[in-house]
């Protein structure tokens, strides 16, 4: 059984001012009254981050500071310790402000540490403190497990997760995510930060085929190789699934070495190779007479993009892949919104490989 979390540790964690749970709203109001006209509160969403890990809860506070600069929100951090011996709920309030012009714009943060039984029923403690009428985006930073509490998930408009964190056997978590998102006639939308992680690579890959002569070869590729980092297998699979969905390939999973088949019957073999480095460090596409390469420049967010074929005489180009910091992935997810239909189509294409 897990030991209770030390309050002294939490007070040092940057969670802000400790408050009694029943006084949260009053103390938040007082925070703004004390700030006077100098600070303006802004909120467009409720952003809830659920974690069962003390370290991530600490990191989440600085993450919220980064997010709040782009997405005004009421942020609620939950550190859940369901295995703690006693039921206990503690709360802190905080504000993250940034200057916009001459104004200081602030987002509120409420942190809950829930222990024992309190962690098993978080909805009754946390959800009364949501900013009313604003959508709820919940980033679940723990494995998604059964049974699914339908009443809890009915509150959630966007379920955010990072499938790269689900290890080598993510199938169970994907199944739970699917179940959650199917609960309210699909009104809960899944948002996988790993999908945001491949966004820059998708742009870079697309750019390889902008050239008219390269585009001619896009439907005659016969091999795909993706090099990924130690935690990047799922990232690589998502990229592969996206290619398959866009190019209408079908996985033939029953073979000893699975491959894709194209609508014209062509076989497309693939290989995922693990190496040290970024989640995706390179891609190589091969057709009969051409090779398309993306190579990550080590330690940077840049790819070198090369098309090798007799008739295209372009020097390698540098393509910016965008930041892959967690805060930026979350900002990107919150900015794009929508239902990620391509993500769902990509997942479907590679389902047997997960």
């Amino acid at each position, binding site marked *: 059984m897990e030991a209770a979390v030390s309050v002294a540790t939490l007070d040092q964690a940057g969670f802000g001012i400790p408050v009694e749970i029943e006084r949260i709203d009053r103390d938040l109001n007082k925070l703004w009254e004390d700030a006077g006209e100098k600070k*303006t509160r802004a909120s*467009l969403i409720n952003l809830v981050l659920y974690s069962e890990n003390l370290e991530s809860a600490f990191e989440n506070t600085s993450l919220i500071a980064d997010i709040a600069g782009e997405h005004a929100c009421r942020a609620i951090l939950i550190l859940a310790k369901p295995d703690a011996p006693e039921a206990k709920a503690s709360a802190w309030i905080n504000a993250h402000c940034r200057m916009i*012009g001459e104004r200081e714009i602030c987002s509120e943060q409420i942190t809950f540490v829930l222990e024992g039984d309190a962690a098993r029923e978080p909805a009754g403690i946390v959800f009364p403190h949501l900013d009313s009428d604003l959508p709820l985006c919940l980033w679940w930073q723990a494995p998604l497990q059964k049974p699914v509490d339908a009443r809890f998930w009915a509150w959630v408009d966007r379920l955010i997760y990072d499938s790269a964190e689900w290890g080598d056997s993510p199938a169970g978590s994907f199944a739970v995510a699917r179940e959650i998102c199917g609960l309210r006639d699909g009104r809960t939308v899944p948002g996988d930060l790993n999908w945001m992680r491949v*966004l820059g690579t998708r742009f870079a890959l697309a750019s390889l085929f*902008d*050239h008219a002569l390269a585009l001619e070869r896009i439907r005659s590729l016969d091999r795909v190789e993706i090099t990924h980092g130690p935690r990047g297998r799922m990232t690589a699979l998502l990229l592969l699934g996206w290619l398959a969905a866009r190019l209408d390939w079908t996985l033939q999973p029953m073979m000893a070495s699975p491959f894709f088949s194209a609508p014209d019957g062509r076989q497309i073999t693939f290989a995922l190779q693990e190496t040290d480095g970024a989640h995706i460090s390179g891609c190589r596409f091969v057709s009969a007479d051409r090779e398309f390469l993306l190579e990550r420049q080590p330690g940077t967010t840049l790819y070198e993009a090369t098309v090798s074929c007799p008739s295209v005489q372009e020097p390698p*180009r540098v393509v910016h892949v965008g930041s892959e910091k967690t805060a930026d992935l979350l900002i990107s997810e919150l900015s794009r919104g929508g239902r990620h239909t391509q993500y769902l189509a990509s997942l479907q294409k590679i389902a047997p490989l997960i």
Partner: protein
Amino acid sequence: MPESKSANPLREGLTNRSLPEPCSIIIFGATGDLTHRKLVPALYNLAAEGALPQAVNVVGFARRDKTDESFRAELGETTRQFSRRQVNEDIWAGFAGSICYHRSAFDDPAGYATLAERLDALDRERGTRGNRLFYLAASPDQFEVILRNLRESGLNRAPGDGWARVIVEKPFGTDLASARDLNALVEASFPESDTYRIDHYLGKETAQNIMVLRFANAIFEQLWNARYIHHVQITASEQIGVEGRAGYYDKAGALRDMIQNHLLQLLCLTAMEPPVGLDADSIRDEKVKVLRALRPLDDAAAHKLVVRAQYGAGAVNGTRVPAYRDEQNVNPESLTETYVAMQVNIDNWRWAGVPFFLRVGKRLAKAATEIAVQFKGAPPVLFNVARQTLTNNVLVIRIQPDEGISLRMSAKVPGAAVRVEPVKMDFHYGTSFGKGTPEAYERLLLDAMSGDATLFARRDEVEEAWRFVDRILDAWSAQDAEGLAMYSAGTWGPTEADDLITRHSATWRRL
């Protein structure tokens, strides 16, 4: 939208907007301010966001002697200065590789012949598929010669399956006749479907948000008519004077420079009926209907309902500024208006009896562009009685600066007494969305590359706007200097403008 045969399937769905296609962008007037301050920084920002296809060439076309390298170096310098985001040198280096310079006089047919050869070569080398976007960023008096040479050299027709489009910068003529001439000139080279008349106001986020506000929120559209709205004020005030544009401005004046295009466009977006779709022509059809419904102003009406004025010496932000006639390159006896306030009536079912007040001016006390929808008052009972007259509700759409929307309403002041005061619900784009708003030119360039003309003015829009404005110009031409009011720089405009709106039991909004 069906996937075109030549579309890159990997581009599909990468952004939630229409996809720009690979192309060569040929800028006529490549050494000018617009190219350096707006166009190339906008293209760079798009490249940095990954929104630009890799296969895009930027070809600067101008008379001055430059090499590709010196042109890129100049653009690099100005892009670092004017880009809304900090320039990443690696990305700039990649983007700069797509820029080249084509030296030619605008009236030299040989220059167009070599341009055609160069574009064909770029198509082969960089896979731009024969798509060409010609940007007329030169002065309007050069449009004719450029368009004629594009036609005579065959550049107005794209090779193969490609397309050839032209972007025309304002002013679109100086009156109805010249606008028709210009349109005919453009049409002789490019069909209307490939002509993009740019009004950068329409690329601003808040201008685009007018339709969202009206048609994505059920509550507003029910109130958006003569039954509930008392009047509408559309204001574009500037603190600056004519800056470096005196030569153009002294001939044009505020009516041509601002009202004919920007303010009438904002009026159309505010007053139009819901379009049947979000495609370019459905929206532009509705805007044209508004322009056709504008009550024409005869000489007497123009005299009564339009105030024209010019600024005299004064102080803006505490700094002394000269009178308009004392500005450099301005005729010392100029009768050009630097301020216009006018009442416009829209004769249709929705707006019968609701005046729209437009005002624009230079060297005013504050710089702001906004649309204020002033609702009628509550009935004179209960709280709205003589003892305590309520202020009416106002919905304000701020276009710039500090883009946003506010709604003024009445609320009880806490306390035992029933005292009602106006309060303001205020939405600021910057506060809520934080991130930097894209420049209007970024959006508009992408749209032109994608073939989406929604935010560009159609021929009939331009001509209808001129038809309305022409009558005022005619009325003014019959007036002498007595028709021109004066106001001191740094004030809110002439008192005549106050009288104009006071006749309708209203006052100009404090900005």
